[in-house]
């Protein structure tokens, strides 16, 4: 199989990813309802919102795993959901994805997991593949765990191994699904740190889906707030944190949303 860059010509645009009017219904329920986004080359872009707002579905659209019912996702100037299988393959090689649970192959060691994209998509000699993979593992601080099976890793180690695998092919974009979910605060901060470091050193565009406010505030250049399948607001981190919209304030200040009071209807049954 060909090397990732041998035939692919990215159309150089300021926006590496463009999402246009993406609408998705799954099982008769509207998950996303006309989402527009533009992600700039080299930034850390955080998609933030409460659970069930459609973040993960949007992420699946962005990396081409799931086609939206309507609308388009353009990556490096190519519509990823209208692409031929060959083009889609090349686009995928330029993107990495770090899954929420790591999604490491359970039958392979950590090193083999990181080697896998290199072995399957390049014709590099085994030695080079091995050292490249070991380098990536060292970058995420997991070289000592190279020969362990994923089942013997802690949650934080799994995420770091998944990041090492996601950057194995030197991608232009890396997507993160809830990188800090299920981690203790210190480990979560380590992962945040790693995302920033990789962004600064390699200029990789990072797209992070999260509901973790602290993490979002720590890493984001720009933020999009998703609410009930729509982009409520998109702007720099400081703009979002200063936004007066009550729904954004509620989310950022971790207040309970105002809900219709429907408890206490036991009163209707009381004898007065």
């Amino acid at each position, binding site marked *: 199989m060909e090397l990732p860059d041998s035939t692919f010509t990215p159309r150089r645009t300021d926006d590496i990813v463009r999402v246009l009017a993406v609408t998705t219904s799954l099982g008769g329920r509207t998950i996303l309802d006309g989402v527009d986004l533009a992600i700039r080359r080299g930034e850390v872009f955080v998609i933030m919102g409460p659970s069930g707002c459609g973040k993960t579905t949007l992420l699946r659209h962005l990396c081409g795993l799931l086609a939206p019912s309507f609308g388009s996702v353009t990556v490096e100037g190519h519509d990823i959901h209208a692409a031929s299988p060959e083009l889609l393959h090349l686009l*995928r090689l330029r993107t990495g994805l770090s899954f929420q649970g790591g999604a490491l192959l*359970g039958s392979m060691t950590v090193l083999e997991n990181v080697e896998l994209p290199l072995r399957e998509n390049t014709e590099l000699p085994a030695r080079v593949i091995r050292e490249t993979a070991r380098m990536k593992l060292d970058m995420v601080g997991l070289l000592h765990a190279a020969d362990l099976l994923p089942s013997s890793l802690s949650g934080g180690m799994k995420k770091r191994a998944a990041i090492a695998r996601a950057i194995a092919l030197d991608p232009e974009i890396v997507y993160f699904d809830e990188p800090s979910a299920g981690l203790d605060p210190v480990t979560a901060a380590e992962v945040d740190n790693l995302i920033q470091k990789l962004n600064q050193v390699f200029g990789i565009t990072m797209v992070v889906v999260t509901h973790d406010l602290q993490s979002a505030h720590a890493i984001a250049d720009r933020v999009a707030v998703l609410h009930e399948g729509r982009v409520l607001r998109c702007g720099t981190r400081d703009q979002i944190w200063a936004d007066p919209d009550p729904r954004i304030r509620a989310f950022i200040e971790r207040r309970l949303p105002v809900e219709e009071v429907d408890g206490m209807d036991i009163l209707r049954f009381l004898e007065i």
Partner: protein
Amino acid sequence: MAAANLDRSSVAALTGDFERALREGPERVIVDLGAVEAFDSAGLGGVVAGLEAAKARGVEVRLRGLSQAMLDFFSLVSVQRLTASAERGAEIGPVTRLGEFVEPIMDGAVAVLATAGDVLRELVVGPFKRRFLRLDRTAVEVDHCAAGALPIIALIGFLLGLILAMQAYVQLRVFGAEIYIANMVGVSVLAEIGPLMTAIVLAARSGSRNAAQLGAMVVGEEIAALEQMGVRPLRFLVVPKVVACAFAALALSVIFDVIAMAGGALFAWGVAGIEFDAFAQQLRGALHASDFFLALIKSATFGLAVGVIGCALGLRVRGGSEGVGRATTGAVVVGIFLVIVIDAVFVTAQRLLG
């Protein structure tokens, strides 16, 4: 209510009283909870159950003497929401129910056919696009499917050979035609028992394994991760598994046949006093090369079917561990069923084609 406590040990009395009161057909029921000193969730669950039953019958209920603690408890829930189902009486029509039964079966059948098509296309068209079978991955699968099943296949083969010879002996002894044990064992093992038993063992060992493994990989997002990395699960996982199953069915059925016939010969020698030479001679006369080839084709087809079903059902898993369990059961049950159906097709075709 006389009981001082309304909890999981005493709630039955309350629901009993409620039922009795409702059966008399009153316009309203008054429940006095004033004497209750302590309560738990089950106790108040009984009260809500009563409210629901009353609502279904259109009877008004008034509660009396609720303590502040009970009111606090009820402030966390909505009685309206809890008793909403009493009003609906949602009846599902027979057509809908039939559809709900049939639809997943149809979907499953389509998925199995699609996977079979994908696998065959990859095997036939792939080499023209410089995509060859992944030998490294296939070897791992063959090791499990074929090598791993060898002891059980040998054991079953040997025992079935003995059993078939014994059954034949009982019948044939009457006519003094013991030598025909070789024909009975040879023909039945080669044509039916060998391919079928091998396929059943394969479905139970490897069909289930493939479904469970791929299902767990879907749940753990490993399949999605592979796709994202530009590794096609079909080529990386499914085709090696299916090819390994077909190869295992082929190889194991040959081994099964040989061992079963040896078992038959051993019985014939030990009990009926037929020499091994005479048994072998008789076998040669009973079996034709075409029977042998047909048996091989049949076994390979069974193996393909078992492999495809396990993989197709595994990749369709939705909904966590429950889904994995369902796919695993399906792989074995549907796999064995389909093997029998294919066998019937083979036999019919053989008859028609003479």
